């Protein structure tokens, strides 16, 4: 699909409110802003309701009989089960503090992308169908009935929220729109309303262990290809182990990084680091061809699906008898691990308290999950002088850092990546205040919205982040946007091509791998991307 040129899109952002009341403006489902519906196959595979072929542009969405009752009953159950949902439905005073904090609203100007109104789409149903005031007073009490038109509106806008939680930090009550969207999508899934870009990875993950549907022998083949590449660059070939019983640590990372650039270079960074740790300190880290996915698109489907897909991490750790788990650079994966895993699929009492066998550091923050973030692990190694790094290999890199939403707002993970970056590169510039750390802007494609067909809304949603990148690109000649999330690596690449050409995207461990001096390496000529290393151009 042809997309508007950046300057046209920028000029066309219209923040003028419509003349009618929001309840009187039905959703106009526009190509470029919605994702295709899931076909029946992935839903059948995991036993999700109402599998069928349907098209959001059709009048008939082929809803199951009694769908209104399914949604209302489902909402009632969740209001009782999730205290947060009940509070978020009740306490909003519509102050509007969140209104202009959403990247999709800033970039699209669509009022229903204001978090307050997005929540109101569902809240109005709660009021109209489940509260006495709403049942009697209707619109005067902010209530409305659940109709097919209303349902379509909820589907359209709940798949234009990336669950980034930026709005929640500006809300004086702490209302978390991500939690409302999570419940909203869960309700929609009860009657088979979803998107293919989420449902297919979910089914793949359940079948093969990862979103891309990579089978064990292919997973191994792909990693071995990277080892061949590393051998060409370093003269040394890492020999990763797979599914090794009795290894020290199990490593789990998003599958996108074993397949598509630039995540592949991050993956090479992991392999280089693990080889170094094996050679220097005898640390045995193994990869799993079963728990071959860190990401979890179940989070974007339902709590139950998230739990089912997440279960393999602990199961595999138990089967292999490792001490603890190390997790790769991913965004939403860490929301699932940090906020849900130990209560959902734990307690992992068969694992040990994570202690770095190299530095002796106890990762107290991971004492319940038994899973440590690789950036934290690497930062600790650097702090204790355990890595032999040569920054000059990254001398061409003038980087900034994009705080990925989930590790930033979900974990308070701000300093570790910056510490690692400052130890592997010379030139680092922060993007402006208000766009980083807890106030970071989404890449525009989080929560399973990094599909192709909704490119327009992704680019609109990417605008605030792009503006901040453009600022450091223009002012400091920044040429690299580093991040610690696989969806970011995919989505930001397209986003900077569109809004800020001339900037590339990388994972933090690509830069770590490139700077690391492997024992016995030959004289290096290129970086991990095959580009000539700084200082080697003349030779």
């Amino acid at each position, binding site marked *: 699909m042809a997309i508007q040129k950046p300057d046209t899109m920028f000029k066309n952002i219209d923040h003028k409110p419509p003349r009618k009341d929001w309840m009187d403006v039905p959703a106009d489902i526009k190509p470029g802003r919605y994702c295709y519906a899931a076909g029946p196959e992935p839903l059948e595979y995991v036993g999700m309701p109402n599998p069928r072929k349907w098209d959001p542009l059709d009048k008939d969405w082929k809803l199951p009989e009694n769908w209104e009752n399914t949604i209302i009953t489902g909402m009632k159950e969740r209001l009782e089960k999730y205290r947060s949902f009940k509070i978020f439905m009740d306490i909003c005073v519509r102050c509007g503090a969140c209104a202009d904090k959403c990247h999709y609203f800033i970039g699209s100007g669509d009022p229903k992308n204001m978090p307050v109104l997005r929540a109101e789409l569902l809240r109005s149903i709660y009021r109209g169908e489940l509260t006495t005031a709403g049942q009697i007073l209707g619109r005067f009490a902010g209530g409305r009935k659940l109709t097919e038109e209303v349902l379509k509106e909820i589907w359209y806008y709940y798949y234009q929220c990336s669950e980034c939680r930026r709005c929640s930090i500006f809300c004086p009550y702490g209302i978390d729109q991500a939690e409302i969207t999570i419940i909203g999508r869960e309700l929609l899934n009860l009657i088979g309303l979803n998107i293919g870009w989420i449902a297919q990875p979910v089914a793949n993950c359940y079948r093969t262990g990862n979103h891309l549907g*990579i089978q064990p022998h292919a997973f191994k083949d792909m990693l071995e290809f990277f080892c061949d*590449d590393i051998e060409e660059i370093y003269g040394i070939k890492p020999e990763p182990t797979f599914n090794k019983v009795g290894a020290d640590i199990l490593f789990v990372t998003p599958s996108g990084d074993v*397949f598509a650039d630039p995540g*592949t270079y991050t993956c090479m960074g992991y392999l280089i680091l693990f080889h170094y740790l094996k050679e220097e300190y005898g640390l045995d880290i193994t990869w799993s061809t079963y728990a071959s996915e860190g*990401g979890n698109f179940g989070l974007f489907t339902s709590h139950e699906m998230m739990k089912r897909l997440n279960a393999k991490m602990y199961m595999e750790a138990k089967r292999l008898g490792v001490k603890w788990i190390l997790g790769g650079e991913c965004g939403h994966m860490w929301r699932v691990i940090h906020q849900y895993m130990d209560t959902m699929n734990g307690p992992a009492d068969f694992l040990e308290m994570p202690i770095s066998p190299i530095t002796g550091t106890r990762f107290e923050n991971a004492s319940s999950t038994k899973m440590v973030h690789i950036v934290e692990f690497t930062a600790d190694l650097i702090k204790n002088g355990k890595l032999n790094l040569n920054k000059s290999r990254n001398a061409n890199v003038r980087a900034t850092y994009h705080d990925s939403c989930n590790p930033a707002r979900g974990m308070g993970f701000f300093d570790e990546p910056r510490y690692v970056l400052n130890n592997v590169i010379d030139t680092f510039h922060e993007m402006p205040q208000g766009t980083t750390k807890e106030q970071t802007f989404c890449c525009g494609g989080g929560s399973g919205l990094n599909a*192709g067909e909704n490119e327009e809304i992704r680019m609109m949603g990417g605008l605030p982040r792009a503006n901040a990148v453009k600022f450091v690109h223009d002012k400091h000649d920044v040429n690299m946007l580093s991040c610690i999330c696989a969806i970011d690596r995919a989505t930001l690449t397209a986003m900077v091509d569109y809004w800020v050409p001339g900037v590339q995207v990388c994972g933090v461990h690509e830069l770590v791998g490139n700077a690391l001096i492997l024992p016995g390496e030959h004289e290096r000529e290129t970086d991990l991307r095959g580009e000539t290393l700084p200082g080697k151009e003349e030779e």
Partner: protein
Amino acid sequence: MPYLNIKGREIELDEEGYLVNEDEWDEEVAQTMLKDLEGIEMDKETLEILRFMRSYYKKFNAFPILNAVCKKLHQPKECVHEKFLDPLLAWKAAGLPRPGTMYTESHDDEHKVYKLITAQ
């Protein structure tokens, strides 16, 4: 359903132009897809890439890493981009099914560089 018509032989395609039955693939099918639909001439290297993708898919049931294709065939590093522009066109011309968890994206109308994007 659209069809490819090759000397009276009708080959069924899906809505996005992928072969419905991958066993109907042969060089002629690939040539027609590339030349008639995209204006791309088939040469020895192009055919090598298509054959590699088919054999990789048969063995691994997966799309190979693009750099690995070029390296294993001893072709230039960007061989798939050079020959097909869009890597998914190579997959399509190799007669393989539409991959559900990846797409390619390009923003520059004049100098198209398709980037492969996957679900993560």
